[in-house]
């Protein structure tokens, strides 16, 4: 596929338009959220680490949190010319990397991240078209705005195309 692959780091966000694609590598308990404007073929991705910015004092990095991260991504996409009223979402990540048997809050952050992302998207009226979340393994994701395909790659598993 022609076009560049734009990288999104941990607690980071970016926007791309076809034929470029956007990726984030090695999602663990973090969640990768893709917002997509099919008409304009513009996609944005945010790599969120924590569910709720209001629980944390050090919250100036907006992309770190599900609530502020998705808001910031929306603003960035609007600026890039996407129609924010017709967006759809695809999400991946939120794994529990270590098999703890405790219900310690600190360790169930993956699950809480996924929940927070879903709540935020629901409150914005953005429909989730596909997700690959939870379980206990890492994921690398790629999104191609040309086709709307969301590729999920994991160690020792075939590539999933959502």
């Amino acid at each position, binding site marked *: 596929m022609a076009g560049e692959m734009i990288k999104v780091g941990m607690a980071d966000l970016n926007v791309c338009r076809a034929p470029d694609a956007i990726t984030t590598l090695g999602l*663990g308990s973090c969640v990768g959220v893709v917002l997509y404007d099919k008409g304009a073929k513009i996609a944005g991705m945010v790599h969120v680490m*924590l569910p709720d910015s209001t629980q944390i004092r*050090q919250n100036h990095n907006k992309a*770190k949190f599900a609530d502020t991260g998705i808001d910031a991504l929306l603003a960035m996409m609007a600026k890039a010319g996407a129609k924010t009223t017709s967006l759809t979402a695809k999400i991946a990540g939120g*794994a529990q*990397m*270590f098999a703890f048997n405790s219900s310690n809050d600190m360790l169930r952050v993956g699950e809480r991240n996924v929940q927070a992302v879903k709540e935020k998207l629901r409150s914005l009226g953005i429909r989730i078209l596909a997700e690959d979340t939870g379980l206990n393994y890492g*994921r690398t994701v790629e999104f191609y705005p040309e086709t709307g395909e969301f590729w999920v790659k994991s160690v020792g598993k075939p590539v999933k195309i959502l």
Partner: protein
Amino acid sequence: MQSYDADLDELEFDILKEIGNIGAGNATTALSSMLHAKIDMHVPKVNMLSFKELGEIVGGAETLVAGILLSLSGDVEGMMLFMLEYEAARHLVCQLMGIPQEEENVEFTDMAKSALQEIGNIISGAYLSAISSLTNLTIISSVPYLSIDMAGAILSVPAIEFGKLGDRALLIESQFKDLEVDISGYFILIPTLESNNRILSSLGM
């Protein structure tokens, strides 16, 4: 409120480096007696890294690694992660179990996983006991948890804990070398903010 982002001053940085040095030294001795082999250690590198950089430390976020995680309680609460490159982990397990290098297949058996967990446990334990005796603080660690996966995914666990406090993580990288192979091990100690202050103040800071 203080945070990790308030830059550590030179002295605090030196102290953490020294803790890393002593901890890694202890861990090397433990490893050496476990493997009945001579192990050399380089001076560890101590770094404060941003999350973006953290993913790149072991050759990229997608590099296959073994991570052993312990959760800490007592005077110091938090987590400790010991991370090894996949090949290095495989090498250590083969050494420990007396399997010739070429015979071990690519997949880790349950036995090999449990051996690796034990290696992580002993190394991390040696590391923690050095910190404990240096600071006079009690550190109780949980059983070890193992995950073999992409570096980025494994590092997300400590990164998230650091993420609650600031935008950077403290990383101590130590390199070991036995007769044949260079082994890079990464220690990431994640004390809660309160515990971090306790460590520093117990050392007279």
